[in-house]
């Protein structure tokens, strides 16, 4: 889905169908992820993205193949929206050799160099300076790509966020910082963690263009990211977007859905703005899709996810010899000569 040409015009039924397909794939994939976790096929930390799919699909559907993406540990949805194969993502979650990170990364560290998907990262805020560095490299080479960096709203209270945004603005780098504000840093509500609630305003400290976006509306996300990407490509100006969304599941698999920190009533209120439901309703009222079409699409996607599960289940565990592989590379710039650098 990811590499669809930017098109924000309403009425493009084919585009809308692709957006719906992308979001539905993430939803169905993660429903099965939860099931596999319960069965012990997936271990460790596992953070579901359910409820936030309009952010990944909206953002990545307006980017180019040669743009760069970097994100947090809540990365399944974005990986799928970028176009990583469900088979390889599921195999990674299962800890198998066919995983997109060869079974070495797991849920929190999905990577795909061919898609310029530079990973899920596990330290809150730690990947934001890396995004600034990728944008620096783009400028260094005179390219017109962008680097899009997803983060949670809790990261904005972290020093790495401020250091990275300051340098991105100071040096005019083509970065888009997308805050997925799902209201909770684990179990701590934003009002209990941030001295301001309109966190996009933090960009004012860095004289950086900024905006607040409805994260349940895939078209709103597309518009905002599209504008930010244009600004980055043509003016080399970074943008901070606060995309307001909500996670329908717990923080991780050990956290109950509503938990001690939010009420069932609040969750139910947000469920009324399920991004997939909103898109489907819009398409149905525009006559772009029927109930039968939706049912067929759903069956098709469920089959893709089942295939991913079967593939992952059949994939071997990484060989024990691989334990010591990928600690270091044994090359130098001499050995490589004038190699093309990543992304060229």
């Amino acid at each position, binding site marked *: 889905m990811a590499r669809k040409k930017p098109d924000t015009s309403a009425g493009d039924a084919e585009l809308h169908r692709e957006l719906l397909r992308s979001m539905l794939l993430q939803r169905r994939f993660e429903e099965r992820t939860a099931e596999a976790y319960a069965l012990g096929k997936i271990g460790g930390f596992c953070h579901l993205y359910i409820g936030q799919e309009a952010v990944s699909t909206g953002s990545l559907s307006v980017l180019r193949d040669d743009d760069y993406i970097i994100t947090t540990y809540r990365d399944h949805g974005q990986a799928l929206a970028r176009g990583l194969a469900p088979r390889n993502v599921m195999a990674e979650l299962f800890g198998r050799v066919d995983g*997109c990170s060869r079974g070495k990364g797991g849920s929190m560290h999905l*990577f795909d*160099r061919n898609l310029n998907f530079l*990973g899920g990262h596990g330290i809150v805020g730690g990947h934001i300076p890396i*995004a600034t560095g990728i944008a*620096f*490299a783009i400028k260094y080479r005179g390219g017109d790509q962008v680097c899009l960096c997803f983060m949670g709203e809790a990261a904005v209270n972290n020093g790495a966020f401020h250091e990275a945004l300051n*340098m991105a603005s100071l040096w005019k780098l083509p970065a888009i910082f997308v805050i997925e504000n799902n209201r909770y840093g684990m179990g701590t509500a934003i009002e209990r963690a941030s001295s301001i609630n309109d966190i996009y305003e933090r960009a004012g400290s860095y004289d950086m263009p900024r905006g607040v976006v409805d994260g349940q509306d895939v078209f709103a996300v597309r518009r905002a990211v599209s504008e930010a990407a244009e600004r980055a490509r043509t003016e080399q100006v970074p943008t901070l977007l606060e995309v307001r969304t909500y996670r329908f599941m717990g923080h991780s698999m050990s956290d109950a859905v509503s938990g001690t920190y939010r009420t069932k009533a609040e969750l139910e209120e947000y469920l009324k703005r399920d991004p997939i439901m909103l898109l489907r309703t819009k398409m149905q009222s525009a006559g772009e899709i029927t109930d039968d079409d939706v049912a067929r699409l759903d069956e098709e996607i469920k089959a893709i996810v089942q295939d991913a599960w079967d593939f992952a289940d059949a994939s071997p565990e990484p060989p024990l010899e691989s334990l010591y592989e990928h600690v270091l590379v044994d090359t130098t*710039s001499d050995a490589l000569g004038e190699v093309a650098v990543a992304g060229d």
Partner: protein
Amino acid sequence: MAVLTYRDALNQALREEMQRDDRVFLMGEEVAVYQGAYKVSKGLLQEFGEMRVVDTPITELGFAGVGVGAAMVGLRPIIEFMTWNFALLALDQVVNAAAKMLYMSGGQYNVPIVFRGPNGAALQLSAQHSQAWESWLAHIPGLKVVAPGTPADAKGLLKAAIRDDNPVIVLEGEMLYNTKGDVPDGEVVVPIGQAELKREGEHCSIITSGKMVLVAMQAADQMAKDGIRVDVVDLRTIRPMDVAAITGSVRKTNRAVVLEEGWELCGIGAQVVDYVQRECFDDLDAPVIRVHQADVPMPYAKNLERAAKPDVAKTIAAVKKVMYIDS
């Protein structure tokens, strides 16, 4: 052969590698307009311009991360820390990002980056500015760690570090920058992972690295007057460690002193002693003794600082002890 200061040797390495490869750039605090807090980057801004010699805000975590990101997509950053004491703020990027990226991406993203700057104590800089971090850094798989003690090794190891496709830590020394030594003409690249026998003797091995190489050499000179001749094994690279060089020397001398700048517990010397006991147990004529900093934060007062630091006298005393010579 030219006589160069350690500072100029590093400067040459930077200049030559930046001339050789357009992807190499230098970033850090005061590296450009100020010409380097210790003038290691003197003249580089004028030669290479502000895109390749980049002054940063005082934000170690931030610019270390910028380096990691740039390295992931094909550039070859050299990140200068004004001192490794300040790099503590950046350790998340060094340890969690640079050192892990290749492994957790299943081999997809290597990080060809150099993190460099002065390490350890200078003179009367007290507790926060006088720390030797080699054992912390050497603990981490995914990093290489080098600690040159001479101008020739400074040039050769920095060049090797820049060309390496892995993250390499280069530990320099503020007290070394003005020291002078012979540097071969032409291309000087010292392979990472190879120790050097800086001095040969048969009575005892002093195993050391970095700034302590000078201390070991001075101790060796003094002891030679009394007829005590020692091997000085300069590790040069802490990780990966050249175990064969250590065991080769100890098998010859049957006695060893390990000299390091840092603290005792879990220090580099502890690891060296482990290699020695595993590989040379039957060769030893005496227990190995370690010389290191006193187990205290570095004090300011001259006399206390002197008492805290490893030095020539303590090294000689240790050698005499393993040789069972009354001093």
